């Protein structure tokens, strides 16, 4: 669209320029006519303004300046033929004023005028003096017709004075000048201009112009007016030509400018096109990249979703399987454990009866029965003990498989820790009556509630505390003198995380064992203690997988073990 507009402008300007050229001759002749009229008019006007009255009144209002000198000279000239006395006065006044003003041109002109006046008055010596005073100026600066007129008068003075030699010199100068003027007029300036016009006009085959040219040719030598007109015309023509040339030049420059502009525009367009192409390529690449990335993300998320689904499905299957197995085991186990316990009671009763009836039996019979009853009692105790072991294994197994689906809730960690310590302590004391320990609690009272699955984290705490008790009991049983089992619990908050440290001064964990403690079914505890090796594995899952926290262990064998539970304050997503 823009380009089209530009083209239109170009054609338009071309049309205008051609129009100028086409109408040029007509225009020139018109100008020529106007110039003639103007010239004649101007001459007439000059004559009118040179009117005596006007000059007189101009003289009256004029101040003593160069203009007054000129007026005085003109007046003198006007009165030269009618009032020679006044002409002399004006010329003398003019000369005086010019001298006073140091108006060199005026002085010279006035001298010439005064010379003419003296010549008329036949005061030849004075006239000669006046003329000679202006001679060097006139020869140097005066225009040709003025100088010619000057020579004419000076020659007359010398002739009348009978100065033949000087007369001849001036006459020679006069003739030379006249010749020179004629040559100049005909050969040089006029001919040149005429040729130019002829060339122009002949080309156009303008008969009127040709006729005019013939007239000019014929008159050029003698008619100065026509010469001047020709000069004017020539000047006008030259100016016109110059104008045309200028216009052509302007047009050329404009066109060049346009060409350059067009070229520039084309380059810009190409650049823009290139840029656009670049942007398109960029946009395309970006689009492809985004497409690729989103595709990849989509694929990834789908994979992740699939994986999560599969994991969820597997977890659910495992949970159902373990729940089923647990149920099927627990039912018979109920009988095993309870009948065993019943047997223990019954054998205890039987033993009691046997003891009270010892006197009715022979010592051998009593000893045998006593031994049998004791063995039965022991058997049932052992059955019960192992039954409990099975029960514990099944419980851990179903706990592990149940997937801990509970939702998180804001929990005061200090309270939870305190609760678990007490619970563990009570149950441990019930099993190991001789065991006593020191518990140091360092709770951070500024610890704000943390969103956790209370039950699960409670189980982790209980598990770790129980392990600590086991380690300290083991160390105590190894007959360590001056040993005070000490459990140190510390809570604090740091970098948006809640930290619980459970430290015991028990047996410690050797390096090679430390790496395996979070592995399922790994245990160092003797069989028959109801330990499944799942405690820390479950704890690890609860803290790390469920709560996105950290579970660390630090230990020095024989010195201490410290479990560190780190829980982010905001989290839990099941």
């Amino acid at each position, binding site marked *: 669209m823009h380009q089209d507009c530009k083209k239109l402008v170009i054609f338009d300007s071309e049309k205008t320029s051609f129009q100028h050229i086409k109408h040029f001759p007509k225009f020139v002749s018109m100008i020529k006519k106007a110039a003639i009229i103007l010239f004649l008019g101007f001459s007439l006007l000059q004559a009118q303004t040179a009117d005596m009255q006007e000059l007189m009144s101009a003289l009256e209002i004029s101040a003593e300046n160069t203009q007054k000198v000129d007026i005085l000279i003109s007046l003198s000239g006007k009165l030269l033929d009618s009032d020679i006395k006044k002409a002399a006065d004006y010329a003398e006044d003019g000369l005086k004023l010019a001298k006073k003003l140091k108006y060199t041109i005026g002085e010279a002109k006035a001298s010439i005028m005064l010379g003419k006046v003296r010549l008329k008055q036949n005061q030849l010596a004075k006239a000669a003096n006046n003329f000679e005073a202006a001679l060097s100026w006139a020869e140097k600066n005066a225009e040709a017709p003025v100088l010619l007129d000057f020579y004419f008068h000076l020659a007359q003075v010398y002739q009348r004075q009978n100065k033949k030699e000087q007369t001849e010199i001036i006459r020679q100068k006069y003739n030379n000048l006249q010749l020179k003027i004629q040559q100049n007029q005909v050969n040089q300036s006029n001919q040149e201009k005429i040729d130019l016009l002829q060339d122009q006009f002949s080309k156009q085959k303008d008969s009127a112009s040709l006729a005019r040219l013939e007239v000019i040719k014929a008159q050029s030598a003698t008619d100065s007016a026509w010469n001047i007109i020709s000069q004017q015309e020539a000047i006008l023509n030259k100016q016109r030509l110059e104008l045309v040339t200028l216009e052509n030049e302007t047009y050329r420059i404009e066109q060049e400018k346009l060409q350059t502009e067009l070229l520039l525009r084309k380059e810009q367009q190409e650049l823009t096109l290139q840029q656009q192409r670049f942007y398109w390529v960029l946009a395309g690449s970006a689009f492809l990249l985004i497409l690729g990335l989103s595709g990849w993300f989509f694929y990834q998320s789908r994979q992740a979703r699939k994986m999560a689904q599969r994991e969820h499905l597997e977890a659910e299957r495992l949970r159902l399987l373990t729940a089923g197995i647990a149920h*099927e085991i627990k039912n018979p*186990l*109920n*009988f095993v454990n*309870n009948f065993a316990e019943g047997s223990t009671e019954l054998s205890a009763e039987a033993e009691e009866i046997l003891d009270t009836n010892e006197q009715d039996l022979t010592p051998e019979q009593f000893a045998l029965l006593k031994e049998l009853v004791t063995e039965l009692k022991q058997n049932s105790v052992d059955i019960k003990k192992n039954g409990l072991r099975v029960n514990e294994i099944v*419980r851990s197994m179903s706990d592990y498989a149940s997937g801990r689906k509970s939702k998180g809730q804001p929990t005061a960690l200090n309270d939870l820790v305190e609760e678990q310590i007490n619970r563990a302590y009570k149950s441990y004391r019930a099993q190991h009556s001789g065991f006593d320990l020191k518990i140091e609690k360092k709770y951070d009272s500024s610890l704000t509630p943390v969103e956790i699955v209370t039950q699960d984290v409670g189980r982790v705490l209980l598990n770790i505390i129980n392990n600590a008790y086991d380690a300290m009991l083991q160390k105590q049983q190894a007959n360590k003198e001056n040993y005070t089992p000490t459990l140190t619990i510390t809570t604090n908050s740091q970098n948006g995380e809640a930290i619980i440290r459970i430290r015991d001064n028990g047996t410690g964990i050797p390096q090679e064992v430390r790496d395996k403690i979070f592995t399922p079914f790994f245990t160092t505890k003797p069989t028959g203690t109801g330990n499944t090796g799942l405690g820390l594995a479950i704890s690890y899952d609860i803290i790390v997988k469920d709560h996105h926290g950290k579970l660390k262990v630090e230990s020095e064998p024989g010195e201490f073990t410290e479990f560190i539970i780190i829980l982010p304050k905001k989290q839990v997503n099941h």
Partner: protein
Amino acid sequence: MRILVIDDEKDIQRLFEQRFRKERQSGELEFRFVFSAADALSYLELGTDVALILSDINMPEMNGLELLKIIREQYPEQKVCMMTAYSDDTFRQQATMYGAHDYLTKPIDFEHLREKILN
């Protein structure tokens, strides 16, 4: 105090009788055993006064929870305690929702049960 025990495993009778031998001998506790939910409802229809019902959940035909619902409708005041080998929370929640007074998991802790019954 009469206690009705409902379980499809018949060994349960011998176990209870053995474990509560002293309480039975002293007449403190009296046990009745049925081995299906239907039998339990028939027994209850006789109008015999029962202080506590101990019922298993996983039984063929009608299960313990269904039985619990019916008992709750027909005998709103009847105390029922569920006992099961399921340690799953869903069963515990369901049982509580249907109006069970307690929920025991197998293997049964008889010391614990004895305390509950006598207090």
